[in-house]
């Protein structure tokens, strides 16, 4: 958790599960958890949450075991070997770059939430958008160039997925996107996304320094993973609420929005009346006042 203001170089605690104060399994994906203030405010609930996080951990470990037994026998030997290799590589990367905060075993620490049960989708989203590894504790992590390569991200995801369930990384294809129903996607976008990310995907501020980021740089894969995992403040849109088809349609709409040239000229950041008003003042009125000055000016001699 950020409130301990621990530096990344702090040695990770051995028993992360005891110190984790994640309120809910849903929030284990969050790189920066609730602020000190809100944690203190909800003091009475904190004990309950600590109990619930122990439960979550137990559940996560159980799920890992179950999954392991279910997954292990499937697939041929070579694939299993590849997967094992990815998990092995991922563990190395994880222990070097992530273990400091999230605990060497992925169980979380005072500076980072547990990653057990978050799934590959969350890892792929957080690391491929550059939000993880976290640069510095802030109200919210912002998008920046990713630190890891695509292969490394897959390996990390494979390792974290091996810790426990959670949604898998999205495998959306260009074909699916181009076949999607744009209009339906637009309807869903306006119903579920526009309130925070803005009708044209420009994002918006939330309370106390948090914000819904702009979608203009988001890849389709990241968009779907964000919907499924609900990173940070974002609500979760599970597949019983938005089917895979719906999710792809929304993603296709966002992609269309990002890639289409504005038919009406320069889009002014697609931010609506505020930049429009500013332009009317600066260019419109400013330019016409300059014309007034020109007309009223005396002749050059």
């Amino acid at each position, binding site marked *: 958790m950020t409130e301990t203001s621990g530096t990344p170089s702090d040695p990770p605690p051995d028993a992360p599960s005891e110190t984790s104060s994640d*309120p*809910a*399994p*849903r*929030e284990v994906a*969050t790189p920066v*958890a*609730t602020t000190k203030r*809100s944690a203190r405010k*909800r003091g009475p*609930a904190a004990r*309950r*949450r600590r109990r*619930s996080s122990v439960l979550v951990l137990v559940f996560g470990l159980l799920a890992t075991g179950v999954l392991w037994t279910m997954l292990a026998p499937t697939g041929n030997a070579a694939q299993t070997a590849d997967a094992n290799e990815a998990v092995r590589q991922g563990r190395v990367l994880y222990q070097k770059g992530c273990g400091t905060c999230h605990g060497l075993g992925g169980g979380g620490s005072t500076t980072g939430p547990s990653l057990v049960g978050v799934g590959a989708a969350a890892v792929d989203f957080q690391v491929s958008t550059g939000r993880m590894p976290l640069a510095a504790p802030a109200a919210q992590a912002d998008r920046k160039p990713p630190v890891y390569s695509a292969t490394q991200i897959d390996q990390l995801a494979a390792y974290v997925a091996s810790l426990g369930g959670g949604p898998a990384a999205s495998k959306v294809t260009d074909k699916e996107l181009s076949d999607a129903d744009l209009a339906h996607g637009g*309807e869903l976008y306006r*119903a*579920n996304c526009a*309130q*925070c990310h803005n009708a044209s995907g420009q994002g*918006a501020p*939330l*309370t*106390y320094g*948090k914000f*819904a980021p702009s979608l203009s740089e988001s890849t389709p894969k990241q968009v779907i993973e964000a919907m499924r995992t*609900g990173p*940070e*403040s*974002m*609500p*979760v*849109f*599970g597949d*019983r*609420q938005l089917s895979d088809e719906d999710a792809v349609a929304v993603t296709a709409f966002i992609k269309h929005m990002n890639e289409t*040239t*504005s*038919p*009406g*000229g320069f889009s002014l950041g697609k931010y609506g009346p505020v930049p429009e008003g500013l332009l009317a003042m600066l260019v419109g009125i400013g330019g016409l006042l300059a014309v007034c000055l*020109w*007309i009223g000016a*005396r*002749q*050059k*001699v």
Partner: protein
Amino acid sequence: MSDQTGPGTPGPAGSGGGDQPGDSVQERVHYAGYQGEPADKSDQDSMSSIFKRAKHPVDTSGAPVGGSGISAGGPDVPAGTSDGPEALGTPPNQTDSTRDPETTVMRTGDAGVAQPTYGTHAGGGGGLTFRPPRAEDVDRRAERRAEQLIACWFLISVVGTVGFVITNFVGDKHQAYYTPCLGSALGLAVGGLGIGMILWAKRLMPHEQAVQERHEFTSPKEEIAVTEAEITAGFADTGLARFPLLRRTLLGAGTLLGGLVVVPLLNLTNSKPGKKLDHTSWAKGSRLVTEDGRLVKLGDISIGGIETVFPAIPVTESDGTTTYKPKTDVHTKADSTTILIRLPPGLDRPRKGRENWSVEGLVAYSKICSHAGCPVSLYEQQTHHLLCPCHQSVFDVLDGCRAIFGPASRSLPQLAIAADADGFLYARNGDYDEPVGAAFWERS
């Protein structure tokens, strides 16, 4: 306006500076008015010369100074005066009275005339100043170049117009270039003409310093007295003062008739407010349905998820079965829109009496902001805050959607929900127990 070649008009050169015209021919005499009328010499003596009036500032008591401004003569009797050149404090040789009764025009910059003086010719209280001649005034080639430049802009305008017509008809209106091209072409078409016209006025038209008198707006005392007397007499003629019955009935009738405007005003609505604002479409047993008609079941929404739901009204069919009719028309949406949020277990702090209004962490609140009616839907799943994007009111979902920041002062109304045996969510108590949306006078 033409110059002095008009038929035999001496012009008011005999005014104060009449001894000067021969001195210099730097300025052509310029007549601003129609040339057929003789000057009204008597004007020279008028009290209303600018010079004299300048020394007698406006008297606010009502009477105008001098006689100008009220000489409502016909067109053949020029009102006002022509002011003598000295009256303006300007050298006579640069001044040019006009035939216009109240406008005096001085021009500089006629072609080929060097204008040596520049600056103020202060005669008394400050006079008009002259600009130095422009290059176009002294150099025939400069004048020619200016003409070419202006013509160039006019031609640019032609190009713009042609471009607009071509883009309009030949261009593909579905391409992104269409609108920017049309706008730029139209901008060139009108802008080219505009720049050309302004350059034309600035570079080629003679500079002038026209001086026009202002009139006093206050009428002479006699005029006021006569007018008032006539109005009084007219009023007396109506007899309103003498016939009180007439006066009172007229007043009454007029007031009533004026009050009649209320009737069409009230006709503006076919539906009286009544208790309409107190109710929404939620009825007891209504299931929660999404916009695309999916009835919401337990487990549809993940923890940390939200869903916007509407009422699906139970309808008993003829065969006794119950079907659910989703109501998602615009009028229903305007007041019945509800936001369903799945909280992590154990966090909700329900209000007294609302302990069983939620099910499995699912809580339902009106999505219509209690401040100004926008849909409040920016849900932060970590802090469990709902933010309204219109005026930034913040509601704490864990605390019964209490307003904790911004201009909203009321909590969002909560909808009591429960799950039936099949897992479908429904409104257990029917409608909200308080009006949704913005407050109003009749609300307690």
